[in-house]
């Protein structure tokens, strides 16, 4: 058995009203930012699956994403593989430090 770590990124479906995205967008002029648009606010869930194979782990994440982490009526999701030992903190700093 091995550990497989994933992030599930959930976003409102295109075309669905996203009041949070709209609120962020409406606040941008207060920051003197005028060149940002189409803001969408979603949610990111990170998790570790212990499984025999990557395919088995992925199947679990996919089922969870479909059944629980997103609502397919209003949201889409994308699964992103992470380093098995990563956490929200390390992946966030990894993104900013090359």
């Amino acid at each position, binding site marked *: 058995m091995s550990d497989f770590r994933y992030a599930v990124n959930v976003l409102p479906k295109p075309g*669905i*009203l996203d*009041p*949070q995205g709209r*609120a962020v967008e409406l606040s941008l002029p207060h920051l003197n930012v005028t060149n940002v648009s189409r803001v969408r606010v979603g*949610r990111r869930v990170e998790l570790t699956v212990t499984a025999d194979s990557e395919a088995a782990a992925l199947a679990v994440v996919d089922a969870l994403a479909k059944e*629980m*982490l997103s*609502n397919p*009526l*209003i949201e889409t999701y994308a699964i992103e593989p992470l380093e098995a030992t990563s956490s929200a903190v390390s992946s966030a700093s990894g993104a900013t430090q090359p």
Partner: protein
Amino acid sequence: MRIGVVIFPDSNSDVDALNALAVAGVEPVKLWHESPDLEGVSAVILPGGFAYGDYLRAGVIARFSPVMRGVSAFAAEGGHVLGICNGFQVLAESRLVPGALLRNRSLRFACKLVDIKPARLDSPFTRAATGKPLHIPIAHGEGCYYADEATLDELEANGQVLFHYVREDGTPALDPDEPANPNGSLRAIAGVCNSAGNVAGLMPHPERMSEWILGSDDGMQLIRSLVESAAAWEAAR
């Protein structure tokens, strides 16, 4: 007759629902979320609140609680289930009623009195209603009813829309941005039922308008409807 009220962690309208049932003359039964046993009740109310803190999405964690296995089986047998506010969100997440409840269009938690009107009086959840607008409270942050256009057409054609938010003149508040539509619900939908007609959800709180001492007993029209339907269902079994 006995009617159950499910209690999830962070339910907060359970006591109001239990009281409204007592006012209607039936024995209220508390149903704990950790047991799938509905204790032989004749109908079930999923009350308002913030089940499981509304974490992830309102209603989704509750969907997977043991009691919902019992509620789903009860609904499949034809038993009547009414979800109020957070209870509606739980039913929608459980796919027991169609659609989804999005964050209010205003982004504000809406806590006020609104007018709703039954779209039909021959449903199990409106049979004791007068047909006049009901003046009852809402208290929610995620009550903006959403379904895609095809589903909305189908719901209207099948008579599955049970309640509309209405203007002072009693007409549906169809513009999602008009004040009489408190959360931006599409087609002014305040409540829907499943295609079989025995499971319904609505955002406003009829159980909080169950006695004159609370300001109005408008909500009792809906509680009595549920009681009558439960009695008819028991009698037919």
